C-alpha cells in the first residue's frame, strides 16, 4: 500500500524554527526592540554622518593642521598602501604554508591500500596532527592573534604579519584539503591505469585540476586579508582602520567618508579583478586563424593566450616583491634581545594565572579558572553565540527573500532563456532590481563587519544591535552572492519546464530553485554561521558585553592571565561552532538527502 499521508518536511521545520530562534537570541542578548531605533543623540550623529557622505573631504578638516604635515592625499595614500602591504605580505606568507598544511591534511594523495602498517600509521598520525593544528590556528581570530603577538613581542609590523598569517594559513589549508579531497577521481584513476605512480597521478590527476579552485579561493582570502588588515587599525596598527577610528572620534565626518570611499575602492578593485581573473580561468579562448603550413612551432605561435593570467602573474610577483622590500617600517627597531626579554616576561610572568604566580602551585589555577568561567565566561560566551546566530539568521532570511530578484537568470528579461513577454517597463524593472541587488551585495560584503559594527555603534548606541546588524549586513552580501550563483550557474532544466508550463518567476523560484538547492543553501548557512561566531568573539572589543569585551577589559586592567584565558575560551567557542557546523554539513552532503 502506498501511503498518501502528506510529507512532513524537515526543510519546513528548519525554516520555521529559524524565526523563534532569532527572537530567542535577540531576547537573550537583553536588548529591546526599541533600542533598534536611535536615540536623539544617535539621530544627530546619523544626520551629520550621512550628510557628509556626499562631501568627502579633499583636505584636512582640522584648521590647526601644522604646515609641516604631509598633504592630505599623501596621508590617505599611505594608509591605503599600508593596508595593502600588510595584506599582500600576510597572504604571500600564508599561501606556501597553507599549501603544505593543506597537502598534509588531505587524503587525496594517499597510496591506495598501503600494505605496510607503519606507512598507514604515519599517514594517519600526520593527518590528525595537521588537522588539529589548522583547527587551533583558525579558532583564534586574527585580531586576537595580533594582540597576542604585540603583547608578547612588542609592536612590530612583522609580528602583525605573522599574526595575520596564522589563521589565514590555517583556513587556506582547510579549504585546500577539502578541494583536493572532493575532486572527482577519474583523471587520477586513469593516470594510474597508465602505470603512473601514486604521487605523479595525484599531481596531474588531482592537484592540477584543483589549481583553478585553489587560486580562486586564495584570491578571495586576499580580499579578506585587506579587510582584516584594515580593521587591525582598530588595535593600533597604522592601517586605514586607525585613521577611520581617529576621524570618527574627532568628528571629522568628511574625512571619514574620504577614508571609507578609499577603502571601498581598494576592496572593490580587488574584488572585481578577482572576478575577471576567475572568469578568465574557466574561459578557454578559441584559436585564431590557422597558419598556412601546420607544424608544432607555427601552431604554437597562434595558440590562444590568456593574457589576463600572464599579466596577473607578473603583477602579483611585482606587488609581493615591493611589499616585502619597501618601507623600513616592516622590521621593527626593537632589538632581538629586547624582544626576547619581552617574550620571556610574557611567558614566565604575565600569562601565569595570578594565584599560581603567588603560590607557584599550578593546582591553584583550577579554582581560579572555575571562578572566571562561572562569574563571567559562561554569560559572555552565550552572548557571543546569540549575537553570531542572530546575525546569521537575519542575513539568511533576507538572502532567501531577495533571491528571486537578485538571481541574474531568474530576474532577466527572458528568465533562463525563456521568452516572458515584451512589456518594456517590466523588463526594465527586472533588469534594474537585479542590478541594484547585486551591487548591494558587493557593497555589503566589501565592508568589514568590524567597521560596520563600529559605525553603527556610534549611531544606535551601546547595545548588541550594532554588532548583530554589522555582522548581518556583511553576511547578507555573501549569502546573497552564493545563493545567486546557485540559481545562475546550475543546470536547472526543471525551472525551465516550470516556466514553459506557464509558471511565473516567483513560482520558478519557490517550486524549483528552492527545493533543488535548499540543502546547499543550508550548507552555506552553517558555513557562514561558523564564521559569524568567530567574528562575534572579537566584536565585543568595541565595548559590548560578550567575549571580546572581557578580553579587552582584562587587557585594560593589565591582567594578562585573565586576558589569555578569555582568548582561549573564545577559541573553544569557535571550535565548538566549527565542530557543530561540520557535523550538520556532513549530514547535508549525504547523497540520500541531496534530492
Amino acid at each position, binding site marked *: 500500500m502506498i501511503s498518501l499521508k502528506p510529507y512532513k518536511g524537515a526543510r519546513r521545520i528548519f525554516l520555521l524554527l529559524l524565526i523563534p530562534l532569532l527572537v530567542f537570541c535577540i531576547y537573550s542578548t537583553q536588548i529591546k526592540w526599541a533600542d533598534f531605533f536611535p536615540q536623539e543623540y544617535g539621530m544627530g550623529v546619523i544626520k551629520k554622518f550621512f550628510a557628509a557622505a556626499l562631501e568627502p573631504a579633499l583636505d584636512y578638516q582640522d584648521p590647526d593642521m601644522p604646515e609641516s604635515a604631509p598633504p592630505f592625499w599623501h596621508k590617505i595614500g599611505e594608509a591605503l598602501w599600508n593596508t595593502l602591504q600588510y595584506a599582500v605580505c600576510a597572504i604571500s606568507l600564508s599561501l606556501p604554508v597553507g599549501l603544505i598544511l593543506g597537502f598534509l591534511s588531505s587524503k587525496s594523495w594517499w597510496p591506495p591500500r598501503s600494505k605496510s602498517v607503519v606507512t598507514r600509521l604515519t599517514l594517519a598520525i600526520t593527518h590528525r596532527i595537521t588537522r588539529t593544528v589548522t583547527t587551533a590556528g583558525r579558532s583564534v581570530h586574527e585580531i586576537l592573534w595580533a594582540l597576542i603577538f604585540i603583547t608578547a613581542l612588542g609592536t612590530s609590523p612583522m609580528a602583525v604579519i605573522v599574526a595575520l598569517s596564522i589563521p589565514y594559513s590555517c583556513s587556506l589549508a582547510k579549504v585546500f584539503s577539502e578541494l583536493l579531497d572532493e575532486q572527482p577521481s*577519474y*583523471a587520477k*584513476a*586513469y*593516470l*594510474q*591505469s*597508465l*602505470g*603512473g*605512480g601514486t*604521487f*605523479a*597521478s595525484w*599531481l*596531474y*590527476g588531482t592537484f*592540477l*585540476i584543483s*589549481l*583553478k579552485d585553489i587560486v580562486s579561493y586564495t584570491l578571495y582570502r586576499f580580499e579578506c586579508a585587506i579587510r582584516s588588515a584594515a580593521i587591525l587599525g582598530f588595535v593600533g596598527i597604522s592601517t586605514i582602520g586607525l585613521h577611520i577610528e581617529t576621524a570618527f572620534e574627532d568628528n571629522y565626518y568628511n574625512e571619514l567618508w574620504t577614508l571609507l570611499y578609499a577603502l571601498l575602492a581598494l576592496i572593490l578593485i580587488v574584488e572585481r579583478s578577482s572576478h575577471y581573473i576567475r572568469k578568465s580561468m574557466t574561459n*578557454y579562448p*578559441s*584559436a585564431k586563424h*590557422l597558419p598556412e603550413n*601546420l*607544424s*608544432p612551432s607555427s*601552431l*604554437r605561435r*597562434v*595558440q*590562444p593566450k590568456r593574457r589576463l593570467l600572464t599579466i596577473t602573474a607578473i603583477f602579483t610577483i611585482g606587488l609581493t616583491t615591493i611589499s616585502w622590500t619597501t618601507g623600513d617600517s616592516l622590521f621593527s627597531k626593537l632589538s632581538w634581545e629586547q624582544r626576547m626579554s619581552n617574550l620571556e616576561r610574557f611567558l614566565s610572568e604575565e600569562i601565569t594565572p595570578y594565584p599560581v604566580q603567588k603560590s607557584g602551585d599550578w593546582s591553584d589555577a583550577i579554582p581560579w579558572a572555575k571562578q572566571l568561567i562561572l562569574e563571567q565566561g559562561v554569560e559572555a560566551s552565550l552572548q557571543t553565540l546569540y549575537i553570531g546566530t542572530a546575525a546569521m539568521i537575519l542575513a539568511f532570511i533576507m538572502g532567501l527573500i531577495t533571491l528571486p530578484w537578485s538571481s541574474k537568470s531568474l530576474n532577466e528579461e527572458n528568465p533562463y532563456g525563456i521568452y516572458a513577454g515584451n512589456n518594456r517597463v517590466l523588463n526594465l524593472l527586472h533588469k534594474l532590481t537585479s542590478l541594484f541587488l547585486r551591487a548591494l551585495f558587493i557593497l555589503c560584503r566589501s565592508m568589514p563587519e568590524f567597521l560596520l559594527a563600529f559605525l553603527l555603534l556610534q549611531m544606535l548606541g551601546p547595545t548588541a544591535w550594532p554588532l548583530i546588524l554589522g555582522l548581518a549586513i556583511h553576511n547578507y552580501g555573501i549569502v546573497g552572492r552564493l545563493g545567486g550563483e546557485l540559481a545562475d550557474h546550475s543546470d536547472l532544466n526543471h525551472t525551465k519546464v516550470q516556466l514553459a508550463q506557464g509558471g511565473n518567476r516567483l513560482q520558478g523560484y519557490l517550486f524549483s530553485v528552492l527545493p533543488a538547492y535548499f540543502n546547499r543553501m543550508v550548507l552555506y548557512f552553517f558555513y557562514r554561521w561558523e564564521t559569524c561566531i568567530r567574528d562575534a568573539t572579537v566584536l565585543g572589543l568595541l565595548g559590548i558585553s560578550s567575549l571580546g569585551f572581557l578580553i579587552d577589559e582584562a587587557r585594560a586592567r593589565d591582567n594578562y592571565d585573565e586576558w589569555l584565558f578569555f582568548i582561549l575560551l573564545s577559541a573553544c567557542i569557535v571550535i565548538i561552532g566549527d565542530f557543530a557546523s561540520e557535523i550538520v554539513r556532513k549530514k547535508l552532503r549525504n547523497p540520500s538527502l541531496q534530492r
Partner: protein
Amino acid sequence: MFQLTDITKSFGATVALSNISLEIRQGEHVALIGPSGSGKTTLLKLLNGQVLQNSGSYSLIESDRAESHLDSLSNKDLRRLRSEIAYIPQDLGLIPQLKVFQNILLGRVGKHSALGMLSKFLIPPQKNLQHIFSLLQRVGIPEKMYQHTATLSGGQQQRVAVARALFQQAHTLLADEPISAVDPARARSLITLLSEIATENQLTLVMSIQNVNLAREFFPRMIGLKNGHILFDSPEPSTEQLEELYHLSESELVEP
C-alpha cells in the same frame, strides 16, 4: 599474449566474471559484446591490471620478457605492465583544463618519475612535440595541438584519447565502449581509425562494443559475455547465439 585461466572476479555479492578462460595473441583484434552489466568493463580492467581476480590466474607473456603473473607483481613491475597497455575508458580520462598536447604527454606518465614527468610537462622536448604533432596528424586533428581540451567536441576528444594511447607506445590497446556516445557516422569512422592504427602498429586491440554489426564488420574475433560467462568466442557468431546473448527476461529489463 594474454592468458586467462579460470578467472573469477566478484565485487561483494555481485559476480562480475566467473570461470573465464581465454587467450588473446599478440596483434589480434577482439570485440567484446554483451548487454550492460555482463562483465565487459571488468574484463578490460583486469587485462589492464586495475583489478585483481579472486581466483584463477592471469598471466602476460611478452616475447622478450619472463611471464608475469598479475597477483605476484611488484609495484614497479605492475606500473611497467600498465605503461605498456593503453586503456581508453568510456569517459576518455582526459583532463579538460589542459591543452591537447599536455594531455597526450601524460600518456607516458607511467614511464617517468613524478619529477621527470614534471620537467617534460613544463618544458616539452622538441622531439616529443614533433611526435605528438605527427600523431595528431594521423588522427586528423593536428590544428588542435595547442587548444584547451575542454573546447574540443566529443568526437575530437576521442581522437585526442587515441593519440594519447599511441604516444604511450604500448603493445596493446584496450577501449571501453568508445563509440557509445556518438552518432553512427562518427562511430564508424572512429572504429575504422582504431583498427587501422592497431594494424599499422601491430597492436593487440581489445574493444567492448554494443553495436554487433560494426563488431562483425571490423573484428575477426568476437567474444560474447553474459552475466560474467563467455557465451561464445568465435569469428562469426550465429543468429541464435546473438539472440541468446541479448535475450533478457522481463525482470532483467526492469531491474538490471
